[in-house]
């Protein structure tokens, strides 16, 4: 069953298209990673899904309803990002208490447990928290709310590595105990990858690909070796990325499927075959040129 259905979605601000003919489905109770560069439209998309922005064109359904201004979508979803604000008249503990009546599945035991674990000062106000503490506190809200659709937009900003690990683990553990549909948008794909089931990669407002994380990891290979030899194997095939190195050495990233049958041959010819990390692959798939930043230096 699809929790989110998106068909040909477009969001335009004047001439600028933040989302441009985007189509995808998100299935129930999966953890999906929303990956993309800055400005690729991730936040705009998440805000539309959460009902804060109105689509310009196309169809967007959450729980089979249009999310904008929908009470039902709002009651069953939560968007955690760094722009959440609370009145200074409320202390952190107050906030935890005040959120509970709105969310039917709210687990206050978990909320307070996490609150104590992170050693928050109960009497503090939300706006006085540091960036990292704010992210940590907001993450508690996201996990404890147990909303059928829980969305995190860059939840780990400012968190140090130990806190991030705790967040992923807490999220996974509660997901195992109480399954729900989770969307995480983040830059730190390599850290996040382990707990993701699917990855939705968007670029310039449109879908680049939407695959299970496992498939994405094995999607491409890197070939490194003598330029002529490498090129002979990839001739006529679509290259995802290439980079020249010293002394005629060439590194090429290509879909595994395109050269799988020749792989032994390639290895024998002295070309190094290596896997491509999902992080790197997403970068290559969304770059504007087929080369990298080194091209800037080559020009000069």
């Amino acid at each position, binding site marked *: 069953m699809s929790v989110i259905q998106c068909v040909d979605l477009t969001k335009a601000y004047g001439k600028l298209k933040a989302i441009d003919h985007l189509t995808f489905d998100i299935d129930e109770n*999966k*953890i999906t990673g929303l990956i993309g560069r800055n400005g690729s439209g991730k936040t705009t998309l998440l805000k539309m899904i959460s009902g804060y922005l109105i689509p310009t064109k196309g169809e967007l359904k959450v729980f089979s309803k249009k999310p904008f201004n929908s009470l039902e979508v709002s009651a069953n979803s939560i968007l955690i990002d760094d722009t959440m604000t609370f009145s200074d008249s409320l202390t952190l503990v107050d906030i935890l208490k005040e959120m509970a009546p709105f969310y039917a599945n709210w687990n206050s035991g978990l909320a307070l447990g996490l609150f104590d674990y992170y050693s928050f000062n109960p009497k503090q106000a939300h706006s006085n928290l540091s960036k990292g503490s704010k992210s940590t506190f907001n993450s508690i809200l996201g996990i404890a709310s147990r909303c059928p659709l829980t969305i995190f937009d860059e939840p780990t900003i400012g968190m140090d590595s130990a806190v991030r690990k705790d967040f*992923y*683990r807490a999220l*996974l*553990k509660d997901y*195992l105990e109480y399954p729900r549909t989770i969307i995480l948008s983040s830059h730190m794909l*390599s850290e996040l*990858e*382990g*707990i*993701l*089931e699917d990855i939705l990669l968007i670029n310039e407002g449109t879908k680049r690909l939407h695959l*299970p*994380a*496992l498939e994405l*990891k*094995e999607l491409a290979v890197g070939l490194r070796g003598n330029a002529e030899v490498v090129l002979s194997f990839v001739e006529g095939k679509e290259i995802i990325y290439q980079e020249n190195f010293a002394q005629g050495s060439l590194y090429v990233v290509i879909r595994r499927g395109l050269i799988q049958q020749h792989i*032994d041959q390639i*290895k*024998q010819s*002295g070309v190094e075959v*290596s*896997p491509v*990390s999902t992080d790197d692959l997403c970068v290559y798939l969304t770059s504007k040129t087929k080369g990298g930043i080194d091209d800037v230096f080559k020009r000069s």
Partner: protein
Amino acid sequence: MILNVDSMKPIYIQIAEWLEGEILSENIKDEERIYSQYQLAEMFTINPATAAKGLNILADEAIVYKKRGLGMFVSPNAKKFILTKRRSKGLRQMVKELVMEANRLEVSQSELDRMIQQVRKESGQDEL
């Protein structure tokens, strides 16, 4: 076991190999219930779907089998099977890589054979 997330090996394969290791060392015996995808997910902080794929690899090779409503169990003689598999496949892979390297270094068939025999003699002598 700590998962190596940066490794060349996908996580689900690491899981499958770890489970094989557990069977080999008899931490999980034949006909015993093996970890579920949810238990593995919690143990290694990974998505249960990833853990499930690891289990499925073992199921495809009949190392484990599914009992309806009860979960996955270790097949009888699984340990023996794994041993044989690792011997034949693992060793075979090593031989393949040896031959490829030899070809790269332009070492002839007979030269390679001689090398193997010599190594065997030396290691055989050590054992004496």
